[in-house]
Structures are given as structure tokens and as C-alpha cells.
């Protein structure tokens, strides 16, 4: 979607290797999120950020870490990839102006396969 890009779009990696997914935004939004999408589970929050260097865990954070060194980039790292982390990963951004628009804008997703 315009203003938010995810890279790579597809990745195949081996079990035990580290993997980093990147989310880049041009909207200058404060909030950024990483979700994973799996059949029967919908979207589950992994980590989110409410500002530069400010991050917090979501409901499925084990095995993942994040970093946000500047407003526009939010990185998701799988320290040691496992087959259970095969999923589609979505990044989302939100302005969260406290009473304004609470809708999120989503990226197009990264399909990660761990073999």
C-alpha cells in the first residue's frame, strides 16, 4: 500500500538461521506493528513500536525481536528461525492522534518459509 513497504516479499530460509524483515514507511506515523497471519488464527500481534527505540511485546513475541532506530523503519528479527515461524508477516502503521483516525494501514506482507 502507498506509504508502507515490506521487504523482502518472499523468503525461504533454513531452520536455525537468523532472518530480518524490514518495514519502511513514508507517512511519519508514530506507531508501527508486526503481525503474523496463519490459517485459523487470523492476525496475531508479535511486537509493536510507539516511537523511536520504544517497543513492546505482543501476544506471540517468543522467538522474535524488533528494533526501531528511526521513525520510518521497523525491523523484525527471527533470532533462529524454526518451522513454526513459517507464516505471512504483515507490518502496519498508525498515526494514533488520540481521537483521530484509528485505522491501520497495512503493508502487502512477507511470505516466510522455514525449511
Amino acid at each position, binding site marked *: *500500500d502507498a506509504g508502507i513497504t515490506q521487504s523482502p516479499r518472499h523468503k525461504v530460509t533454513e531452520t536455525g538461521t537468523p532472518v530480518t524483515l524490514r518495514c519502511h514507511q513514508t507517512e511519519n506515523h508514530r506507531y508501527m506493528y508486526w503481525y503474523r497471519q496463519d490459517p485459523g488464527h*487470523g492476525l*496475531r500481534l508479535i511486537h*509493536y513500536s510507539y516511537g523511536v527505540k520504544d517497543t513492546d511485546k505482543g501476544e506471540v513475541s517468543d522467538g522474535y525481536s524488533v528494533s526501531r532506530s528511526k521513525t520510518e523503519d521497523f525491523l523484525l528479527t527471527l533470532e533462529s528461525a524454526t518451522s513454526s515461524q513459517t507464516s505471512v508477516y504483515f507490518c502496519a502503521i498508525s498515526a494514533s492522534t488520540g481521537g483521530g483516525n*484509528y*485505522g*491501520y494501514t497495512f*503493508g502487502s506482507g512477507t511470505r516466510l518459509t522455514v525449511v
Partner: protein
Amino acid sequence: AQSVTQPDIHITVSEGASLELRCNYSYGATPYLFWYVQSPGQGLQLLLKYFSGDTLVQGIKGFEAEFKRSQSSFNLRKPSVHWRDAAEYFCAVFAISNFGNEKLTFGTGTRLTIIP
């Protein structure tokens, strides 16, 4: 903690027929509610949202949803579906976390199939 239930995993309707997708939420305070649509291979797109006021909310693509506090529901409706409406639909509730930061909690989704 907030939660969202979409009881229908998969719904099939004929083109031109009416549609209703169910969503029930659990949240202690006044909820902010959303419907998103995801076409195959795509990200999620916001259809509509409810913050306050009129309980019948109009969205894009001819969709509407009605907030019913007494039933803790926010069902999505469309009077006449088109083949392009085939997609997966997600209901979501907005909540403030323990740190005062917002986040969305999603339901598990309803996949909509349209038959000619």
C-alpha cells in the same frame, strides 16, 4: 483483555444475494470496532470503523455495519454481493494496552465465496 469472535469460518453466497458476517466482541469499555477486507495475496484494507455516535456505519464498497451494545456485536452487511467481494473479512477491536498505547485485536476471519 479484549477479544473478537467471528463464528463463521467460511460463508458461500450467490452473486446478487444479501450478506451478513457476524462479529462479537468482548471489551470492558466502549469499543472502537473495525472491519477489514483481505483479497488473496494482498494486505488488509479498512472497510469501515465505529467510534461513537450513529450505530449504523457506512463503509466503502457498499458495506455497512451495525453496532449493538446489548448483543456485543458489530455485524457487517451488504444488500447485494458482487463476485469481486470474494475475500477474507476480519473484524477487529481497538484497545489501550497497559502502557497506554493502542493496538488492534483481530478475529480469526471469515472467508467469503461467491457463486454465480
